[in-house]
Structure formats: C-alpha cells, structure tokens
C-alpha cells in the first residue's frame, strides 16, 4: 500500500511539468520546496535522528551558491567543477566545525553554528570579489547532455531527482550498520561506545552529510536564480530550515519534504492573503507566521508527518499492524574470534582501588576469572559491587591497581577499545534504543564484527553484510528466547525481557568475556530459570561470565566461584558452598547479634522463590533485598 502511494507521488511529480495546465507558478514553488527539502533532509538526519541542532545550514547553502557563482563568472569555469570545489570546501568547513564543537555536550553545536552562520553571512556581504551586499549576477544556467536547464520546468527534474535520491540514500543509510550507530547518538551514547561505536566520529559524519546536502541545494539554487546575494544565506534562513524540519516531523525523512512544503506554502499564502485581510499593511505575515508556528508546536510537538502517517494508517486499515513474522533471510555466519582454552585466566583483577575523596569505595580487590567459568560478585547494598564493575568496564578510572584481560591492561582503555578486545556487557539500568526494533538493537551489538562505510550504506551496496548482521542478531535472539519479538519496538518489551535483550546484544558482539550487571533483576521465577539455562549453555561453549547479582538463589545455583564484598573490601571468596558457610559472610549479611532486626526477609517476590532446603540462601537474600 505504501509502495503504491510512493509510486503515485513520484508519477505525479514527474507528470506535473509536462501537463500544459500546470501553472508556471506551481513549478517555481515546487522548485523552491525541493531545494529546501534537500537542506531539511540533512537536518532530519542531524536533528531528528541524531539529536544535534544546527542553525548554520543556510551558510552551507551559501557556500554552494557562492562557490559556483564566483567560479563560473569570474573564472569562467565549468559549473560541474564548481560543484566539486563547493562540496570540498563544505566538507572541510563542516569537518572543522564538527570537530571543534561536537566533542562537547548539548548546546555547543547549535551555538557554534549560530556563530558560523552569522559570520559567513557578514563575510559574503563584505568581500569585494563576492560583490559585497549586491552579490553576483549573470550566472549561466546548467546544461545536461546538451539540454539547457534554463527554464523552471527543466531544472525541476534535476531538483526533484536530487531530492528523491537524497531521500532514498538517507533511508538506506538509516537502515544499515552505520545508520544504527547514528540512531544511537541521540539517547544511547554511553551504550554505543561500549559496543565499539565511535560516537564522536559518527556525529561528525552526520554533520558533514547534512552540510553536503545543503551545499548541493545551494549549487542548484545559484544556477536556477542566476544570481546570488547574501540575504538568503543568513541566520534567519538557517533558523527557517530548522523550523521546516521540526514542523514536518524531524524523525522521518519524508518529514523533510512535508515540512519544506508546509512552511514555504504557508509563507507564500500569508503573503497573498494577509494584505487582503488587513488592508495595505503587509507586515503582518511575520507575526501570523510566528504565532502559527507556536500553535503547531504546542499541538503537534513531533511535527505534521506522524499525524499524516497516522491518518494514512486509518485509511488503509492499519497496514502497519500486520507485523512481519519471518526472521531475516539466512546468511553466512559472521566470523568468530578464537576462544581461550578452558581454565586459562581471562580476567585478572589486581588490587584495584577506588577512592572518592576520603571514602574508599573499593579497597584493593583482587580476583581472577578463568575461561569457561561463571563468577559472581555479591555483597550487601553499598558494598562497592557496582563501583568494581564500573572499574572493570572502564566507566570509572581506578585510583590504583590493574585490570588485565588476557594479559592486556583494561583500566587505561576507553569503553570502545575494551569492547573491541572481546568484552561484552549489560547495564544495571537498561539502555536500549526504545524506538528501534528488538532485532536492530541486537544488530547494534554486532557493530564491530563487520565494516560498512557510510557511502556504501547510502547506496545500498551493503546488502550481503547487512543480511549477515541481521542473521546474527536473529540467531542470538532465538538463543535467548526472544525470537518471537524480533520486530517489536524494544521499548514495548517488559523490563525482564529488556534485560534479556541486553544479553542478546552483548552476545552479538561475539565476546570472550561477558560482564552482566544484575541480569536477573525484575525477572519472574520462570524467566530466571530460563536465563540461568542460557548462561549455563554459554559456559559450556567456553564463555567466561562475571555477574553482579542480588538474587542469592540464582547466584548460588549458577556460579562456579563467588567473591563477596562488604564496605569495599573482599571478605570471602570461593565456591558457593564455601561462601555460604563463611563466618564473615554471615556476619555481613545477617549482622551481629544486636541488630537482628535486619534479618527479617523483605516482603517481595524473592521471598517465595527460594527453593526448600536452601535455607542459608533464603535468609541471605532477605538481607540483600
């Protein structure tokens, strides 16, 4: 159904200029809409998908326009060469601005681009060879294969071909390995980094991509107008592009076209209608325009596109509700890294220490984890388990001591490098991309196992690799028992399922060592049993697992080896049986004789879950809940 609609839209676009009844004004208007759509498309990717805001897009349009204007008039060069030069200049400028501002959080990019937009505007207006505020006139129209694009009806095809190509490329990009990384930029940066995604690099890529689209738009604009002047490249227009993106719906590529069409038509109509209503004064358009935008945003915060999509769903009888059930096509399995022999030391924690001011959160903890072993790290609340976990995963820097993975120091490496070595992890607070499907979330985990460039992804040249990645993700999902939820949005899963999903994502990275932070929290009894079965199976395959956990029953049954912490110090270590009988552990969990109030089991689901005949564990979990 959606495909039919798309074909209809394209056919209508193609036929419009040929029909003699179409007024010339429509064509001109559509040309402007198309040019703006190109710029806004970049912003959709930048702002809507990646969560970065730029006000400086109009300046990039200006670079495209001014480069070709100057090059084809003053230098009498070819416009096609000018396009290449313009793209190169834009690339360098965008890369430099991105490298400067994108490393910073939040608001620096918008602010940096405001500065950039304003400065470039004043530069255009003051440079002698760019004609100062008068600009450059007398630009030649474009020629393609001897067909002149001087008339609006001819250049129309060039513009809309570019727009449709841009839409197609952007959609492809978003549906690929780099696309998943880009979609993680907005709300899951720390998570993405721990799966080996260089978020700073992807931010720059997105920014450059958006800038290049804007530059292309400017190049066509100059040849359509045959003249350029600084005013359409000022900050106001940069803001207007952002407006279009937000009004159209900044999370969907079609939002770009809708937004550009909506805003430009609105502005145009206001210019026609308002003088008729208010008499001679034509100043009202800005006011009405501003007020309308405020209202649109108050009532449709996500823009117009989601509303249109919703109506379309209603009309076509909810075509989206029909969920795809078949798994992705089978593909070759991804290469796996060699596993260490069973019994070989995988993780060695050597006297790590973390001090927060005067507080020693982790006090010279040492332990080793061998291949094919499940080790539990337990302790009462505030024992320093999570801090230890964060030291191992590189989230926190240790005050002293060392963490070695297969003989290599981990504690000096960023999270990204740690994952590259073969360490997978889950998070205590689930970190999923809730608007992406379960399958895509897991495929994100396999990011490092294949390499696909942005260009290849945009051109859809990555089909084989993409199939391999998705197949791997599907395999891991089947393995942990989430196979039937593959195309569900990750945010719709129950918390327990989300935790399992995190494990599947970690497995997709093909780790040697798996670090699990409270994997059983929030799971029902049966789910816990299933999880234990999965982890046991992984162990049999030679995986090494370190888990931090509260549920004693779960830990005691599953682990080979336990480390018990209290007040930052290791108080016991050994097999589950040994630890259960250890006096220091009983002291830590049950307290001294005086404060026996704390041993009352907390009312909660765990109280009923402990198996009979496992009394010490049953009491222990009361203290830890």
């Amino acid at each position, binding site marked *: 159904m959606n495909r039919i609609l798309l074909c209809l839209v394209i056919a209508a676009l193609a036929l419009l200029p040929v029909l003699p009844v179409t007024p010339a004004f429509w064509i001109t208007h559509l040309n402007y809409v198309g040019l703006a759509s190109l710029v806004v498309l970049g912003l959709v990717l930048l702002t809507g998908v990646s969560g970065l805001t730029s006000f400086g897009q109009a300046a990039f349009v200006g670079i495209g326009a001014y480069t070709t204007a100057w090059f084809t008039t003053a230098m009498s060069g070819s416009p096609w060469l000018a396009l290449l030069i313009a793209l190169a200049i834009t690339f360098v400028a965008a890369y430099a601005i991105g490298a400067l501002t994108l490393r910073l959080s939040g608001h620096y990019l918008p602010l940096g681009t405001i500065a950039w937009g304003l400065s470039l505007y004043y530069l255009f207006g003051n440079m002698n060879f760019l004609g100062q505020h008068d600009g450059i006139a007398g630009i030649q129209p474009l020629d393609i294969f001897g067909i002149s694009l001087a008339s609006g009806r001819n250049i129309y095809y060039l513009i809309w071909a570019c727009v449709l190509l841009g839409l197609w490329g952007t959609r492809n990009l978003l549906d690929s390995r780099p696309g998943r990384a880009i979609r993680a930029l907005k709300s899951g940066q720390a998570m993405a*980094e721990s799966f080996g995604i260089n978020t700073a690099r992807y931010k720059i890529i997105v920014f450059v991509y958006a800038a290049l689209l804007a530059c292309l738009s400017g190049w066509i604009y100059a040849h359509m107008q045959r003249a350029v002047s600084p005013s359409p490249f000022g900050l106001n227009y940069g803001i207007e592009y952002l407006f279009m993106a937000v009004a159209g719906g900044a999370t969907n590529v079609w939002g770009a076209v809708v937004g550009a069409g909506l805003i430009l038509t609105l502005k145009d109509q206001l210019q026609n209608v308002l003088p008729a209503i208010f008499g001679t004064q034509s100043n009202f358009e800005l006011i009405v325009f501003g007020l309308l935008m405020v209202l649109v945003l108050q009532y449709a915060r996500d823009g117009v596109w989601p509303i249109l999509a919703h109506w379309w769903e209603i009309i076509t009888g909810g075509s989206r509700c029909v969920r795809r059930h078949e798994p992705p096509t089978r593909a070759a399995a991804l290469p796996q890294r060699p596993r260490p022999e069973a019994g070989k030391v995988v993780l060695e924690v050597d006297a790590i220490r973390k001090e927060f001011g005067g507080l020693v959160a982790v006090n010279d903890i040492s332990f080793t984890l061998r291949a094919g072993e499940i080790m539990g790290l337990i302790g009462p609340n505030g024992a320093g388990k999570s801090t230890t976990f964060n030291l191992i995963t590189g989230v926190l820097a240790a005050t002293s001591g060392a963490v070695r993975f297969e003989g290599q120091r981990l504690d000096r490496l960023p999270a990204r490098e740690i994952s590259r070595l073969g360490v997978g992890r889950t998070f205590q607070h689930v970190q999923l991309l809730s608007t992406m499907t379960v399958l895509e979330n897991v495929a994100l985990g396999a990011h490092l196992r294949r390499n696909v460039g942005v260009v290849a992804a945009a051109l859809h040249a990555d089909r084989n690799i993409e199939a391999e990645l998705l197949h791997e993700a599907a395999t891991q999902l089947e393995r942990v028992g989430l196979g039937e939820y593959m195309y569900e949005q990750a945010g719709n899963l129950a918390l327990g399922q989300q935790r399992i999903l995190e494990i599947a994502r970690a497995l997709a990275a093909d780790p040697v060592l798996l670090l699990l932070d409270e994997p059983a929290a929030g799971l029902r009894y049966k789910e816990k049993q299933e999880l234990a079965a999965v982890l046991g199976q992984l162990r049999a395959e030679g995986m090494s697992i370190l888990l931090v956990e509260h549920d004693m029953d779960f830990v005691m049954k599953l682990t080979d080896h336990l480390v018990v912490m209290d007040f930052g110090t290791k108080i016991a270590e050994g097999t589950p049986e040994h630890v259960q009988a250890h006096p220091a552990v009983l002291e830590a969990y049950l307290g001294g004789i005086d404060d026996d109030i704390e041993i009352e089991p907390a009312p909660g689901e765990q109280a009923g879950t402990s198996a009979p005949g496992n009394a010490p564990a049953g009491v222990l979990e009361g203290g830890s809940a």
Partner: protein
Amino acid sequence: MNGAIYALLGLALVLVFVVTRVIFIPQGEFVAFGALTLAYMVNGQVPGTVPMLLILGVLVFLLELVSALRSRQWAGMGRTAGWTLGLPFLLYLLAPYVVGSDTSLWVNVLFALALVIPMGPMLYRLVYQPVAEASVLVLLIISVALHFAMTGLALVFFGAEGWRTPPFIDGQVDMGPVTWSAQTFFVLGTCATLILALWVFFGKTLYGRALRATAVNRRGARLVGISTNMSGSLTFTLAAAIGALSGMLIAPVTTIYYDTGFLIGLKGFVAAIFGGLLSYPIAATGAMGVGVLESFSSFWASAYKEVIVFTLIIPVLLWRSFGSKHVDDEE
C-alpha cells in the same frame, strides 16, 4: 559600556535557560520593546505595546479561566484577574495622560517598564507553559517562532525607522585626559546595582532560592512544593525586566530599530556561552570582553565588526572543549 548591557542580557539568558530550559531568543525583543516604548512616550505618542498588553492580558485570563473551570480551583483567580485584566486596563486608561514631553522622563520610564515587564510572565503562560516539559529543541524552535512574531509586532507598532531616547543624566565627567558622559556612569552604576540585586535575590530570598532549586533539579523542586509554573513565570518577569531596562539604558547611545534587539540579544548570548549557559560570573566577564572587543573592532575594521564578535565564539568553544570531558545523554 555596551559590555555592561551584554552582561545583563547574558545573565538573563543564563537565568531563563537554567530554570526553564528555554533558550530565550526573544530576550532581544524585550530590549527593543522597552527602548521603543519609551521613545514613543517621550515623543508624545501612545505606543502599540499598550493595546498589546491588554490583548495578552485577556488571553492569559481566558486561559486561566478555562483551567480553573476544568480543575474547579478558584483560589487565586482574583489575583490573576488583577494582573491580567486590571493592570493592563489601568495602564490603558492612564496612557494618554502620561505620554508627552511635559511629563518627567522618570515617569515615562516607570510607565514603560510597567507596560513591558508583565509581558514576560504573560508570554510564558501563553507560549511556554503548555509545552514546559517538551525537549530543549522544541522549546528553542518555539522561541524562534516567538521571536519572529515579536519582531513583526515591533515593526507594526514602531515602524521601520530607528529611535533614540534622551539620556537619563546630562553632563560630562572629566577624568584626566578623557571625558566621559555622566550617562555612561549611570549605565554602569545601574548595571552593577542590578547585578548586585540579583545576587542578593538569589542568595537571600526564598523565591530566589526556589528558582535556584528549580534550576538544579526540576522534579526535586516540584516534590518539595515549588511550582515550576511559578518559577517559570518569575524567571520570565525578571528576564523581561532586565531586557526592558537594558533597552532603555542603551537607547540614548545607540539608535534602536524594531529588529535591533536580536543582535543585541545575540551578543548577550555570546557572553552567556562564555559561561557555558550555566555560570553567572563568567557570563558577566565574557560580556565585558565582548563589549570591549566590539569597540576595538569597530575602530579597526568596522565592516567586519560582527564577524569578529561572532567568530570569537569558536576559540571560546575550543577552550571549553579542552576544559570539559564528559559524554552526556540528552533526554
């Protein structure tokens, strides 16, 4: 001296941002509204801000009435009616008597302030409060839309030509080789007083502390009984007051057009960026720097004045990027 104005605006922007997460681009419009309202009154005309306040007041009142009808909470409606209907109407009636050059400048200043300042909370109620929980981006875009609307209104009310207002204080002060106008000292003094007053407000008073609490943690502030709507409203009152006052201070030395506010506000913005939108003292210092830089660059290369001021952000950002090293997640 411009630096002092930028400092004030920078402070207001930082304040609005930390409390409400709104990047308040229309701040500059309050500058223009304040200055032009005063200019009109000094010239003996009733400014368009008088009916505008009346309309805004009525709209706010209707909005409050609807929400009161829905929640059946009538407490506070009297007060609402007072400031949304009574005050604008009173000003409307008084306006013809106050305008004109025969009334003292100070009366005009007070009257103009009374006109412009209530617009702050009213606009907050109308524009921002319904979407207070939206993302920073949506709030930003709404700010931009409001900026467009207010610029358009300014053009309708005050026309396209620029205005200057008479200085608050005449005379010169000789300081060795240089002569300063008394107005300069007046501006600097006022700015210093205002900054000091803000400092006392935030440090010593209950409302000031409530605002700071909201800035640190919105949800936490709400849990201890601070209304975020009240905080937002109060913040916008302050921002409007600072904006309008800045406009009146700067109008005697700079010709103000209907759209001048935007550029002045942006320079305040640059200053605020120095402080990373979070720190008041750095924002104030940055503003001084911007003012000085602007004066120097208008000597050497006046055409590139704006370019120099705005590209200044880049090294500052660079400096800050080496200062902070953390990855944060939005939303």
